[in-house]
């Protein structure tokens, strides 16, 4: 009995050793194959179908596996990708000339019909249909020319073209084994497009275990041979815990991490082996003051007093440790509506005087809600604002909650002051106003996240006019006027724009591939 037990244990040990030595060899073979980037992000792409969800993560994925018609550069200019050039034909039509000789991962050639197919699919996607609502569709002129047609003149045609990542129409046509159409956009169950991809991008997904690991390998027939990028393989691992993600970089287990938690900026920047890149972002963090719930907030003086009482530069310095930019308007530098002379205005005495003028020298009590795991330091920021408002005798009862519960409460407007952060999907100024400050209107969908119920017909008029204004200078003037009105009215309480952050080993040239949209162009990454 005992002898046979030892025999079995012995066999198991031998088996393990054999398996281990075999694997050693495999590792050695892989090392010869080319440059590999080990990438750790806080989450991995939720699916392989670029149209199933509109989120930063999915767009980052799209830039790796697909190519857009055109894309933003670091300086917010547009550069040709699958479209080599474009020209306006008339008020409603933009003509795109497509790159020739481009192949999809499946081997199918890329032509104008793929663009048409992709735009039609975007118009069906629950997440993208809103953005593509102004578009009539695509007219195919010939294999390498097509017209993008809008219903009426639209100022953001090119912004939207950065979201058109042509998909392989032949590959996604037909039905899968279970008889469902391959192009179905499915949010609730398995589908062909969720687990298969064929784009024109530099990388093909060769292995994917959701939430564990995604392996991207370079596509041999990739069109952009002028790109300096020399990474042949990317292994993406999601590491959710901030401390673990930083530890993985510092210990050398991964080469590149994003995002970097602000509390570790110094550690990463000072380490011998790693470098840190940060950039002011475009996500604005704000508080909305609900005028329907609190008559006090209807008085612009009270709203102004609150803006004067909130020391947002102080919050940036102490709570955000300088990893954000204090804001006085919605759009940051580089956006059409940015007005340089609007500055943060903390002045406690002025705030107290305004409260007195408004007849609320003794203040009042109100409620506030904020998420506690959505934005960087969201809970601490709201606590700081509560204590700042106490100085002008506004007593605030704060309740914070996880994001899974927050948005329903936000929509129900359960509190007088509510926190919201916004990043415009269109990378354009008007988008902030459309969602955050235009008069709430269920039919048009404008003001969907305007829980302050601020409503100013002049703002609505200007924002709507900007949509059809195709002259960039005139449009910019309109959007700047909007920011000025919101500033004077204290329509909401602006806090700051969160910084974006990336970190990697020293041999990575990170700087050239990152941008304010937070879509690192990994195809162009150079590893020394």
């Amino acid at each position, binding site marked *: 009995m005992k002898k046979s037990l030892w025999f079995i244990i012995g066999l198991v040990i031998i088996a*393990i050793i054999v*398996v*281990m030595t075999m*694997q*050693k060899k495999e590792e050695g073979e892989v090392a010869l194959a080319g440059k590999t980037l080990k990438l*750790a992000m806080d989450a991995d792409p*939720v*699916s392989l179908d670029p149209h199933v*969800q*509109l*989120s930063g993560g999915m767009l980052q994925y799209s830039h790796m596996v697909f190519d857009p018609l055109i894309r933003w550069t670091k300086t917010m200019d547009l550069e040709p990708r699958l479209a080599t050039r474009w020209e306006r034909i008339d008020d409603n039509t933009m003509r795109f000339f497509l790159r020739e000789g481009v192949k999809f991962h499946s081997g199918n050639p890329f032509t104008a019909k793929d663009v048409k197919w992709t735009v039609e699919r975007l118009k069906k996607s*629950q*997440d993208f*249909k*809103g*953005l593509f609502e102004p578009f009539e569709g695509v007219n195919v002129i010939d294999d390498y020319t097509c017209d993008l047609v809008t219903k009426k003149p639209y100022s953001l045609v090119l912004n939207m073209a950065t979201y058109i990542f042509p998909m392989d129409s032949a590959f996604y046509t037909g039905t899968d084994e279970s008889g469902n159409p391959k192009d179905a956009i*499915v*949010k*609730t*169950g*398995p*589908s062909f497009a*969720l687990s298969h991809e064929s784009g024109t991008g530099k990388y093909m997904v060769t292995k994917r275990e*959701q*939430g*564990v690991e995604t392996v991207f390998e370079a596509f041999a027939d990739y069109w952009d041979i002028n790109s300096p990028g020399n990474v042949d393989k990317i292994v993406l*691992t*999601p*590491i*959710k*815990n901030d*401390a*673990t*993600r930083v*530890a*993985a970089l*510092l*210990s*050398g*287990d991964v080469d590149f991490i994003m995002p970097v938690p602000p509390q570790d900026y110094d550690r990463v920047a000072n380490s011998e082996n790693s470098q840190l890149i940060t950039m002011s972002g475009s996500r604005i963090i704000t508080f909305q003051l609900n005028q329907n719930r609190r008559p006090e907030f209807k008085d612009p003086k009270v709203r102004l007093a609150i803006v004067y009482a909130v020391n947002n530069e102080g919050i940036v310095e102490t709570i955000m440790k300088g990893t954000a930019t204090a804001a006085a308007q919605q759009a940051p530098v580089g956006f059409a509506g940015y007005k340089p002379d609007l500055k943060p205005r903390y002045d406690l005495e002025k705030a107290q005087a305004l409260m007195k003028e408004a007849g609320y020298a003794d203040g009042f009590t109100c409620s506030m809600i904020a998420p506690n*795991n959505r934005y960087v330091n969201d809970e601490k920021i709201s606590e700081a604002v509560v204590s700042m408002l106490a100085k002008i005798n506004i007593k605030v009862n704060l309740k914070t909650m*996880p*994001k*899974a*519960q927050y*948005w*329903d409460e936000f*929509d129900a407007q359960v509190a007088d002051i509510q926190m919201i952060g916004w990043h415009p*999907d269109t990378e354009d100024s008007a988008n902030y106003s459309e*969602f955050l400050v235009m008069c709430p209107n*269920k039919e048009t*969908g404008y003001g*969907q*996240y305007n829980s302050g119920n601020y409503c100013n017909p002049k703002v609505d008029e200007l924002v709507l006019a900007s949509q059809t204004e195709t002259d960039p200078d005139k449009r910019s003037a309109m959007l700047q006027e909007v920011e000025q009105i919101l500033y004077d009215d204290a329509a909401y309480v602006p806090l700051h724009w969160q910084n974006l952050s990336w970190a990697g080993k020293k041999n990575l040239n990170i700087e050239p591939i990152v941008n304010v949209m937070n879509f690192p162009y990994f195809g162009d990454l150079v590893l020394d």
Partner: protein
Amino acid sequence: MLLFMQLDGLMFAFTVRRITQGIFVMLVISFLCFTIQHAIGDPVRDIVGISVSAAEREALREKMGLNDPFLTQYVRFLGKAVQGDVGMSFFFKKPALKVILAKAPATLELVFVSSLIIIFASVPLGIYCAIKPRSILSRTIMGLSIVGVSIPVFLTAIMLIYIFSVELHWLPSYGRGQLVYIGGWGSGLLTLDGWKHLILPSIALSSIMLPLFIRLIRSQMMEILETEYIKFAWAKGLRKRRIWFIHAFKNTLLPVITVGGVQLGTMIAFTILTETVFQWQGLGFLFIEAVERADTTLLVAYLMVVGVIFVVVNTIVDIIYGLVNPMVRIQGSK
């Protein structure tokens, strides 16, 4: 012969009772999950972008059947659960049970290795502390065990990562490393890389239970060393080792097994913390993420699977207990 038939009958009654209990536990768990799932949040929010209109979200909610009355949803769930279908995970877009089974090996291997550490460290240390209660080493062990119990698991885990991964570069900081797939079971136990990845998480996980078991074994053993039959054994002139390891230790084991069975459940709870810190792709990590995403089907399925594990483990402990100590009869016998 007659005796065996009687035993069979007893076993049968015992099994039936256990299964009924198990089903009852499942019903209670699923009902509780269903009642609280609205408090967890709205799953639709997580599967659409933030700028999607309220009408679109409403349509999706309707399609997913989330707008139906509570009882309709619960009865529909039970009807499918009977057929082995506990629903589709909203996030993974796959059957929830499949997702859970795919992640189970990670957690089971972690718990297994931690248990090994606990067993092979606590037994010798516990015995030593009982035999030589006044030695400096014993006092150090007891002192450290107090510290071990008091430090939270996630702190232990982060400290281990900083010492052994970031500073010393000895061990990897996250994940499971290279896996070998045997059937559907992705195992890290068969590769050197897999073992390297296992070391830190399993030490972190055992850090809570290990001191507890050392103390338990020590106190049990010390009590038993005072009993009459041990004194008799000394008087008979038996060798030290025989008295310590055969006579005393065997009797120490009984309560340790009982506590061990109960603590296995606690261990599963602590995997949630350990797995989050080490990005260990197991059930605990899955659970935390499901809570954050309000992936309610996955949550319900997870809690039901854990319920099954508890029922099974307790049953096994009861059986083992009966085997080790004939004085304890299996419930169900008269």
